[in-house]
């Protein structure tokens, strides 16, 4: 005797967290039932496989109907079809938009295009994230990216409003298209990049200045995902620090005198100062050109982190150096620039 039709509808929509997890992970009903069986639910509840199947199918149907609403979380709050307690709604949204860091790391900086989506098979194989889950997460990234693309105001806040905070980093990367896939960047995790993105947005973006953007300023019209053009333009002025030999020498002597005896790698610092300083300043100067922006992290690793590492700088050494390197000049622009660079480097300086 087979059940052709089998539904259960509660006035309050039942959400089973375990089944939701299985659904999000992209398991079919049969796979989900198998996993639930392995979880020992049968023994605990003394029920039958048929009941478990029916239950799983019910939940899957509910999730499929909910998915449309999850694509626009504010609608989930307004809709009348499913009566779901607020804390459950929050859970649904959070879990739906949660992502696997391994996958996010793979996708960082990639264009969220159809082409990329086609490569998800490989990504799935590399990261061990199920292909269906990969696709869903990819679509999430894309949906968030699209939704905030046109919006004004601070990126992080926009995303927070519409979705969840974590996405700011991904959108920021997708927007600026930083290169993250090179082999020498492989040691960096998604969390590293997310922290960097947060520092960069925090220090450099328009919204970060703590004052409402002047509506007459040209940046006010720009989406917040882009770094403000005027700021990037201003960064070019910093080049004088390394182009002008006197300024460079002066900078070096200030930093060296401050650090003498306080840092274990003083000799190496003295020898490399000019190269380091050039790298640090030029990274910023290149940010105006989209093509060079891509190399931001590559440059930092290649020209700062790797030399320091080969000279066996400790993270403490790097912190001390960057603090004094920044403090040696008093200029708002310089401090704003170096604050993010310092944060990024310190975060990235590990094995």
């Amino acid at each position, binding site marked *: *005797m*087979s*059940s*052709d*039709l*089998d*539904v*259960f*509808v*509660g*006035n*309050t*929509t*039942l959400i089973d967290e375990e089944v939701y997890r299985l659904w999000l992970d992209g398991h079919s009903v049969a796979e989900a039932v198998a996993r639930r069986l392995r979880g020992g639910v049968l023994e605990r*509840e*003394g*029920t*039958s496989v*048929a*009941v*478990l199947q*029916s*239950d799983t*199918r*019910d939940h899957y*149907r*509910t999730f*499929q*109907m909910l998915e449309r609403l999850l694509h626009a*979380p*504010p*609608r989930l*709050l*307004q*809709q*009348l*079809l*499913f*009566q779901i*307690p*607020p*804390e459950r*709604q*929050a859970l649904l*949204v*959070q879990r739906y938009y949660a992502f696997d860091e391994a996958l996010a790391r793979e996708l960082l900086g990639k264009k969220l295009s159809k082409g990329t989506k086609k490569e998800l098979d490989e990504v799935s194989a590399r990261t061990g994230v199920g292909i269906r889950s990969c696709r869903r997460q990819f679509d999430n990234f894309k949906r968030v990216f699209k939704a905030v693309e046109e919006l004004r105001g601070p990126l992080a806040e926009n995303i*927070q*409003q519409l979705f*969840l905070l974590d996405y700011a980093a991904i959108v920021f990367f997708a927007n600026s298209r930083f290169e993250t896939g090179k082999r020498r960047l492989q040691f960096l995790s998604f969390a590293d990049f997310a922290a960097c993105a947060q520092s960069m947005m925090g220090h450099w973006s328009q919204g970060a200045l703590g004052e409402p953007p002047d509506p007459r300023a040209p940046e006010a019209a720009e989406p917040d995902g882009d770094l403000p053009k005027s700021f990037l333009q201003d960064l070019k002025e910093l080049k004088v620090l390394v182009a002008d030999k006197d300024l460079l020498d002066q900078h070096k002597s200030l930093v060296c005198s401050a650090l003498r005896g306080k840092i274990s790698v003083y000799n190496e610092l003295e020898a490399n100062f000019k190269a380091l300083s050039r790298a640090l300043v030029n990274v910023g100067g290149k940010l105006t050109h989209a093509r060079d922006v891509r190399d931001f992290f590559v440059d930092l690793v290649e020209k700062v982190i790797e030399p320091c590492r080969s000279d066996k700088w400790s993270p403490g050494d790097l912190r001390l150096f960057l603090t004094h390197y920044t403090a040696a000049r008093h200029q708002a622009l310089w401090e704003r620039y170096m604050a993010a660079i310092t944060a990024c480097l310190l975060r990235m300086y590990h094995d």
Partner: protein
Amino acid sequence: MPGKLKVKIVAGRHLPVMDRASDLTDAFVEVKFGNTTFKTDVYPKSLNPQWNSEWFKFEVDDEELQDEPLQITVLDHDTYSANDAIGKVYIDIDPLLYSEAATVISGWFPIYDTIHGIRGEINVVVKVDLFNDLNRFRQSSCGVKFFCTTSIPKCYRAVIIHGFVEELVVNEDPEYQWIDRIRTPRASNEARQRLISLMSGELQRKIGLKVLEMRGNAVVGYLQCFDLEGESGLVVRAIGTACTLDKLSNTSAFLPACNSPSKEMKEIPFNEDPNPNTYSSGPSTPLKNQTYSFSPSKSYSRQSSSSDTDLSLTPKTGMGSGSAGKEGGPFKTLLRQQTQSALEQREFPFFTLTTFPPGFLVHVGGVVSARSVKLLDRIHNPDEPETRDAWWAEIRQEIKSHAKALGCHAVVGYSESTSICEEVCILSASGTAAVLNPRFLQDGTMEGCLEQRLSWQPGFFSIGSEKGEVDFFPQSQDSSSLLGIEEASPPGCGFCHIPYDELNMPFPAHLTYCYNCRKQKVPDVLFTTIDLPVEAIVIGKGCLIQARLCRLKKKAQAEANATSISNLLPFMEYEVHTQLMNKLKLRGMNALFGLRIQITVGENMLMGLASATGVYLAALPTPGGIQIAGKTPNDATYDQHISHMQKKINDTIAKNKELYEINPPELPEEIIGSPIPEPRQRSRLLRSQSESSDEVTELDLSHGKKDAFVLEIDDTDAMEDVHSLLTDVPPPSGFYSCNTEIMPGINNWTPEIQMFTAVRVSRLSTINPTNQTLNKNFNDLCENLLKSLYFKLRSMVPCCLCHVNFTVALPEDELVQIAVTAVAITYDKNQALQANKAPTEKSQQRASTDNEEQLQFPLELCSDPLSSQPFSPAKEVLEGASSHTGIPAAQRVLKSHSGSWFRAGTSPEIDRCNSWIELIKLKAQTIRRGSIKTTTSLEKASPLAEGYLRHRSVPSCTNSTVSVVKMTPLSFLPGAKITKYLGIINMFFIRETTSLREEGGVSGFLHAFIAEVFAMVRAHVAALGGNAVVSYIMKQCVFMENPNKNQAQCLINVSGDAVIFVRESELEMLPVQPSTAAPQPTSSAGDVTT
């Protein structure tokens, strides 16, 4: 022109994209009422239009206001082609037509399309200005309140319960009109939805008129159903109980509330003050009524024939005054005559209520039911209601005479239903025969009650809310001497005492003295269709008991078909009854409440499903066990097998007794007689095989007077049946289930509730189906469904499924559809344990709290003087059960006149099939469910209840918060107080699809549709300003599919009462007026004098 309807269209949101090119919609709205239509402007290029229209005003008479729904259509404007409909909203404006209900309807409504489902939402405001000159020629009945609730609604009190009202309207089904061939499915569905809406309005108006004629102001227990007869038409019919209700004053609404339902019920009569009317005619009433004295010679036989049935009935009808001399005192006769005469004035003394004001129910006779098979294509004039009216009148007449046969003058818990397959229709009616206290039935009342009430008040008030159950009984010294002793039994068991004459029993039955009061006779088993009276004393907990049955039937046409159905029905009734009785015994219980037997007819089979809640009534004797008797006692292995089965059965009974905590006090046997069967002496109940009538006569069980229930295993079928008895698995631990409102033995509900609907359609795919395999399949289907419910709701443990309501349909060959609606309520386990301990410690086994103990005082006081009265226990006791039908209502009946069943086939037009009666009665004392507050659990549920759907992590979605609307099939919400009834919700929807696969197959389609129905109900309630629907019921769910064409269609009809409730925890926070408790006596005294 007595009314002005005003409508404003505010805004829309989440509209579907209607213009693919722009991904936007140019929406406008048509507002239609009657023949008048208004339109809003087009709001271009938006999915969230803000129309902010002017007020559209319709000037209409109130008849129209009652009949017509307000129809709102959202359309997409198209310059070049016809405008596309997005969807519709139908709003029933009836709740705005009486002053105490809603004053405005305002809110977001889902825009519904019968093909696409919900497509966005629309914000609408509706108001009605009623002019007050509407008295001239009443075609309308504005102002009559309707309640689905089958008890007196919580914030009202019943001044008078007038009685039965019914109405029926017929129309041609649009689906079967010629035009249906050329119009779109959408147009056809909408025509049907609109027609049913119109017919419901008309029906309600007509019933309202009848209520006004009876001088009532409300209909309680309103049940409206529709019959899709196909070619012969569409019938909408309704029954209800007309009442005069008084709204309780506001102060009472803020009395410290108690969270147990039973207590709440008591509270109402407590607050209630004697109505002036009830006293006005004073003592003259009984005297006056005597002039109507009951004539035993008067024939109650139904004119409708059915000779054998009549024969068996007629003698019993004489019971009234004829047997008066044998009864305990003259008063019984007097009382009876009085009530009888009050009821006799009514054509049908029926009440759709299932719960009553304390004292209303004097005795319960047993279940009465009647069925009849009709051929729809024989209706002479299908467009007129006359034929159907006559059909129902016939059935009701039959019910009435059955009740008479049980010595009862009224039928309570009454309901009607139909099952239609092609041109065959089975009409069914059932109820519980009862003797009622006349006080509520007419304007006059007995003075004794008044005096008693006054004298008792101080005592009751000191206790709290306890008084209701006593004051209608003539129990004080005055009244008892005046009224006679026999009514003097404690109210807790009075209703179990047999109402019929012991010497003139309608059927052979085994009577004992009431285990509670020891004064009156009670039957050994009691079946009823009502809820457990709150005052009943119950031992242990109750449980859901179902009997399930399939019977194959040859495919046949017309009369042959009707005949074969008629022939099958009695066997089904009998078998269902046997199953119920066996299962009841297997659980060690002795009474069934809320019994509902559904017989469904299909092309090639009949299905029977009976659900009821079994309990152990302290007043009734302990049920005997079940004995198995083998047929061939010489075979050793066979004997071994039998004894093995016997052991299994005994084990099950023992296990069940433990599970349901049934520990009746040990009673000295000599007092009662021997409740424990002596194996040699037992009577044997017989399983009748439907094929052979001779077997039936062979097993006459009516001799002997023992309790044991014998199952004779005479063939493999019998063996199967015994097996199936044992396959019913008890619910997993932490779960209880019942189909009544409240679960006996559980009294500490938390506010956490979950109402749900589950639907299953299964194919009974056996190649050569036999009754046995079908039975097994059907049984498995039901059991699996229950199992699956328990699993789904496991997070609510400990919890009880209440009001479990199964409906069975046979949509086509071999397909069985089962729909279940119920509510799961979590209870507090710790407190449950405490409460359970109390009764086990007490030999009286009362589920009591401190309150209850105190309550005992007044009860004892009032019974003491009575017991000192000369008392004649020799009153005849009789026990009812059905007889004329040949179905053994109690266990031993099986008379030869059961042959009467077979008569029916000869005239299928009026196939009276069967009707059987059950009864018994019991006695008990007041049970008082505790009023323990459950604060911990309140917290758990509160976010759900009052939550605004805003959450920290998703902060900004500011513009709207969807208010939570609770739904429950019960008449109350645990832990909450209903402060206002906003009106009846009665909605009918059709959904159709031509892309079944794309919508997730049949399950996806129906899942979405049920969710949509819930959403629309909630939206309407919220728009009325309510936060819950009580007495919610899904009356119909008709599902049809055509997988080959990728199509499916479903019709759903739901109803309930929209209410506003306030959490008790919130009530407590209100400043407690010191006057709330104290002024009660004065206020009630004051009312008395007015």
